[in-house]
């Protein structure tokens, strides 16, 4: 991607807000009012988070309990979304699966985007040789398609929820760093950073106190965009048998292991988890889009 300079924050907006937290809150309130689609997205996300937290209360069955007497049961009053090839309740597995999805989604995107934020901001702040070297390293990572890098990492680390999170966040770091650096470059030239430098503050302090808060908007945009991508990546890895492992309930995993094979006679097995994935990613994208429109309408390429 070309190094197109990104504009600094709206002066007006910067003047309005005093701290990063309040500024973010204000921005969120703005988009909630103005963007109905974004609002719908937020609503779905909230429902999802509640479901995940309250899973043991909401789920009608133990997601791990096998019932060889009720294998491939179609949806009915007992099992609303039917059962899978081990007689496990699909609804309960989807409900518990939201925990895995959120854990992977938030885990990978928050850690990945934050690591990118720090690397990108520092690289932009220091500039010169350091920036040059960091950029070349990031270029190397950016030359791999997301899934290819994640696949290679998971092949090395092995499978399991936390290893999968790691595999997904690794390719996200350079992408976040790239975006954050672009903003950091323009922030670096601003008067208050100059002023901070003139005061003789240390690099760490300047980066964390003066640079990072200004890079927060693109950081948030990147983070929300990654949320959906992380869930999709987890599903892809699981479909290849390299993601979260049985018997952990996870949406991607529910599409694997018999789901597609038996789709004709038991379509509920692949359809409902697929819908859950789509709905979750859909909601995260709506949410992210609106956040982006509110924070920075020019940052489009993610």
């Amino acid at each position, binding site marked *: *991607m070309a190094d197109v300079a990104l504009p600094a924050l709206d002066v007006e907006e910067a003047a309005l807000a005093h701290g990063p937290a309040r500024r973010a809150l204000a921005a969120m309130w703005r988009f909630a009012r103005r963007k109905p689609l974004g609002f719908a997205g937020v609503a779905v996300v909230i429902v999802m988070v509640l479901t995940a937290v309250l899973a043991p209360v909401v789920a009608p069955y133990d997601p791990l309990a096998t019932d060889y007497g009720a294998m491939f049961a179609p949806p009915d009053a007992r099992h609303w979304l039917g059962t899978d090839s081990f007689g496990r309740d699909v609804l309960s597995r989807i409900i518990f699966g939201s925990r895995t999805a959120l854990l992977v989604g938030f885990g990978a995107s928050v850690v990945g985007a934050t690591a990118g934020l720090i690397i990108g901001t520092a690289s932009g702040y220091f500039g010169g040789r350091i920036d040059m070297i960091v950029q070349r390293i990031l270029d190397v990572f950016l030359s791999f398609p997301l899934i290819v890098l994640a696949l290679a990492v998971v092949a*090395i680390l092995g499978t399991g929820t936390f290893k999968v999170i790691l595999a997904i966040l690794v390719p996200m770091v350079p992408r976040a760093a790239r975006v954050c650096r672009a903003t950091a470059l323009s922030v670096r030239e601003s008067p208050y950073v100059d002023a901070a430098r003139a005061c003789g503050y240390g690099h760490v302090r300047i980066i964390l106190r003066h640079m990072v808060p200004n890079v927060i908007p693109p950081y948030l945009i990147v983070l929300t965009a990654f949320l959906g991508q992380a869930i999709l990546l987890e599903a892809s890895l699981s479909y290849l048998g390299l993601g979260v492992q049985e018997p952990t309930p996870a949406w991607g995993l529910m599409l694997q292991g018999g789901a597609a094979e038996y*789709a*004709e006679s038991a379509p509920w097995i692949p359809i409902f988890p697929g819908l859950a*994935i789509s709905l979750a990613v859909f909601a995260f994208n709506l949410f992210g889009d609106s956040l982006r429109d509110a924070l920075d309408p020019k940052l489009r390429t993610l």
Partner: protein
Amino acid sequence: MRRYLVRRFLMMFPTLFGVALFIFVLIRLLPGDIVQLRMAGEGGFVSEEAMQQERQRLGLDRSIGRQFVDWMKGLTRLDLGLSMWTGRPVTYEIGIRFQLSLQIAIMATLIAIALALPLGTIAALYQDRWPDYAVRVFSIAGLAMPSFWLGILILLGFLIAFHWTPPMVYVPFWVDPWGNLSQLIWPALATGYRYSAVATRMTRSAVLEVLREDYIRTARAKGIRRKLILTRHALKNAMLPVVTVIGLEFAFLIGGLVVTEQVFNLNGLGKLFVDAVTQYDYTMVQGLVLLVAFVFILSNFVVDLLYAWLDPRIRYR
């Protein structure tokens, strides 16, 4: 300008070298062993001695440094070595799959363009009214649905409705156009939809941005017809970022259809990559990743060239 381009071109090589070094080390961190996998993957009676012999034959008994230097030497002659799994040249194995991957990438791109340009423009023109919402819901759904899941649903639909399934063996388009298309159109649709979603969103915001520019406002104020504004001014100027995103997605499609190819049983580069990783075929993974990275870096370079050429406002750093 010229200096920038030369520098930008030369910059490709350290990146490629970095990719080569990175994947070379990465693949050797995999736990397990290709020889063990090849010879005892199904049970059976293989002696340790026989496996040691095989390691020697594949050159895996040499030091890592030595293996890397040998690989680099080969690369300077554009020789990627032999696949450790099949014993055939890596370039030959890649060549077989490249055609199919390229065709799907082209078809998906065409589908994406055909959907994205009209939809994105409409959404921009009716911003925050119902056509905009409809287009955005359609495109975000495209981003949200796993392509492979969409593929599963497509295949399932055909099986249930027509007892039909696409051909399993690839035939080149010029040999049997019908057979070729009836196999490849479905995966192209499944991936093209996601791809079109990306391109639609880009088209929308690009057109929006251009519509806000002063000269369009001027044109409107002058009373030039809406349609004319659109075709003469807005669309033309909005094309640059759209072309960019299409170029980059295209590069991604060449090697990134990892899961969709599994669902449709396509003999493409994505499947080759998964197979090579699961089979611990070091040389194949190295060669393939290098190729995919090269395509990606090259298309980045071309996009940069385009920018530099078309948009003099770009700052060169």
